[in-house]
């Protein structure tokens, strides 16, 4: 049975400094794959690197104890390739084999191993890594199947559990709220109070949601103009903020002011002018900028940083409950994959082929001979012997081919083809 080995490190085992040193850019991934492909001990290989992990997944040519040498050689290769001493990172490495490697990959693809459990980017990143492996000819029948199974289990988990359902970051939670207050953000205008780094970050998130316009108000007008230019918006004087409120819908506040920069009375006045159109205040400043009493005005909603944090925390709790369900689904998928892998051994394939032929011969003889009543017993036996001989001669060469291993050819490929050609069925034929 072919084996699968996964070497890697992630945010749990290695600090950021080490992960940086071992992360592979797309060019480096390409050259690493080219290098690993040349290694005669490796049949198939895939390199996967994000900011939180670097992993090398490969199928060794050899069996048993020789595999340990191969693993060592691969680690040595990584060290050489990234120009880093092996002793610097071996303690942070995890090495998974067989079933554990499959489970690890499935968990990574399903975002169960992510720093932010359930984050959706990881699957795309893995797909990209697989695409590179395919393009460089590093992926074969085993990795193809393994990777496709990891994509489908990841999708299934996303679909059937609530793992990706809730916002687990502050800015995402704020945008989710905005989307439940306003029906179309692309028609809404955002007012930024304060031109600091926090404001900039928040707007970048909102811009990716296509808001209509951005207005910046800041005590130092120069900074407001600079930020407004950056986002193609307009700048207003800080004193004009009350007037600006009439025409905006979402207010993101992050000034360093010690007192409220927007009071209950101001917003009440503004509400009348804007015919009570909804206002959504996001106050990310500490101390707070926006009077929390504003939340009691109808059609005005105020969320401060703690409110958003609370939502995020309860969402994370919810998500953790869903992981239990996801882990169970992964266990099932691993088991299925293991069964398929086992079926790729030579002996069971030959046996399945023989069984199928014997079954065909028996069935056909029975059908034909039952209608040929005039034959003697000897005739019938002769016919049976002949059909059996035809069948076994037919599969003689294929079986000899399968038995004749070695020659650096990929047995799993031919075994897989044989199973498909003769429709021998596997444990998993969806």
């Amino acid at each position, binding site marked *: 049975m072919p084996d699968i080995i996964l070497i890697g490190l992630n945010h749990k085992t290695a600090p950021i400094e080490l992960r940086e040193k071992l992360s592979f850019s797309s060019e480096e991934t390409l050259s690493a794959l080219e290098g690993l492909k040349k290694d005669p001990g490796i049949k198939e290989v895939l390199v996967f690197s994000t900011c939180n992990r670097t992993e090398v997944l490969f199928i060794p040519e050899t069996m048993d104890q020789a595999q340990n040498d191969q693993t060592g050689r691969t680690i040595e290769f990584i060290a050489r390739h990234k120009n880093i001493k092996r002793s610097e990172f071996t303690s942070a490495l995890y090495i998974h084999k067989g079933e554990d490697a499959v489970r690890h990959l499935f968990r990574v693809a399903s975002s169960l191993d992510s720093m932010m459990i359930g984050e959706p980017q990881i699957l795309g990143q893995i797909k990209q890594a697989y695409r590179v492996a395919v393009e460089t000819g590093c992926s074969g029948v085993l990795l193809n199947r393994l990777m496709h199974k990891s994509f489908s289990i990841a999708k299934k988990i996303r679909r059937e559990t609530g793992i990706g359902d809730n916002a687990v970051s502050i800015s995402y939670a704020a945008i989710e*709220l905005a989307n439940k*207050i*306003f*029906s179309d953000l692309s028609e809404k205008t955002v007012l930024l109070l304060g031109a600091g780094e926090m404001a900039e970050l928040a707007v970048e998130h909102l811009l990716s949601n296509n808001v209509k316009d951005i207005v910046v108000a800041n005590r130092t007008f120069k900074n407001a103009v600079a930020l407004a230019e950056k986002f193609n918006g307009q700048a207003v004087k800080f004193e004009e903020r009350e007037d600006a409120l009439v025409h905006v819908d979402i207010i993101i506040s992050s000034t360093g002011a010690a007192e409220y920069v927007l009071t209950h009375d101001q917003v009440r006045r503004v509400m009348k002018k804007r*015919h009570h159109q*909804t206002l959504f205040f996001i106050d990310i400043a500490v101390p707070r900028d926006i009077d929390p009493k504003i939340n009691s005005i*109808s059609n005005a*909603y105020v969320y401060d940083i703690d*409110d958003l944090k609370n939502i995020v925390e309860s969402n994370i709790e919810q998500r953790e409950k869903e992981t239990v369900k996801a882990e169970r689904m992964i266990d099932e998928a691993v088991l299925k994959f293991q069964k398929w892998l086992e079926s790729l051994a030579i002996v069971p394939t030959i046996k399945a082929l023989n069984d199928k032929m014997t079954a065909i011969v028996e069935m056909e003889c029975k059908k034909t001979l039952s209608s040929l009543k005039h034959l003697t017993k000897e005739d019938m036996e002769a016919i049976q012997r002949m059909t059996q001989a035809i069948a076994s001669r037919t599969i003689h060469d294929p079986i000899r081919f399968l038995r004749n291993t070695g020659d650096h050819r990929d047995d799993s490929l031919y075994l897989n083809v044989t199973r498909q050609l003769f429709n021998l069925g596997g444990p998993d034929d969806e």
Partner: protein
Amino acid sequence: MNVRIDDMLLQMATVLYFFSMAGYGGFLFSQKKLYQRAGLSLIASAVLLHFISMAAYTLSNRHVPIQNLSQSLSLSAFALGCMFLFFQYKSDLKILGIFASVLLSVTMGIVWLIPDAPAEKNEIFKGFWFYSHILLIFAGEAALALACGTGILYLLQEKGIKTKTPGFFFKRLPSLDFLDDAGYTCLTTGFALMTIGLVTGFIYAKVIWGRFWSWDPKEIASVGTWLIYAALLHLRFYSGWRGRKSAIMTIIGFSIIIFTFIGVNLLIGGHHDTFTK
């Protein structure tokens, strides 16, 4: 006595209304579109059967089935079903099906619970003005029922957002803006239909009794309801009564409609009481 075909069809429609409630319930919890589609198709089929049932009744009895409370309720359920399908087609507010299917099922449940005593045929209940009056009023009230439904959904969503505890409904309901807009569409449609319906009612009264207005309790209540909705629309236009206040008003308005529909006749009487005997 032979089984009446219209009764049988009506029973089938009722069963479908109840099934649609299950479909929408499944949709609410699982968020699977399949359930919503099932619920919607069930309501559509039920409305069709309901229509055939009423057509069969009309053909065999030579008058439309609004001779008693049971039949009036059945007709209002039919109007609600039609209105729901119309708004579903127009504004895609899927979750409103929860409200519609429950209200339809409850109404049809009551239809089968109260006696369907055949009333005396009243010759004055016919003619263009009579049918226009009935049709417009029932359609208008169905639209206002849906406005009430969106109002309830709005309040559920608004409460979660206002109190900063987004819960069960947060994911499942659309945005406040969307609910407010949908409610407003239902409200204006309902109000327009009800206005024309009242006018045709007055004309019908003039034709039959020779006067537009006869201080009938139902007339007073209907005009009262109309004034409440007119006030709501006015406040919305000129004083910005949108969102929560508007949602509460649509719910109050619809409660008054229910009272006008049933309460006035049961408690007070008047020349509309035939429909609700």
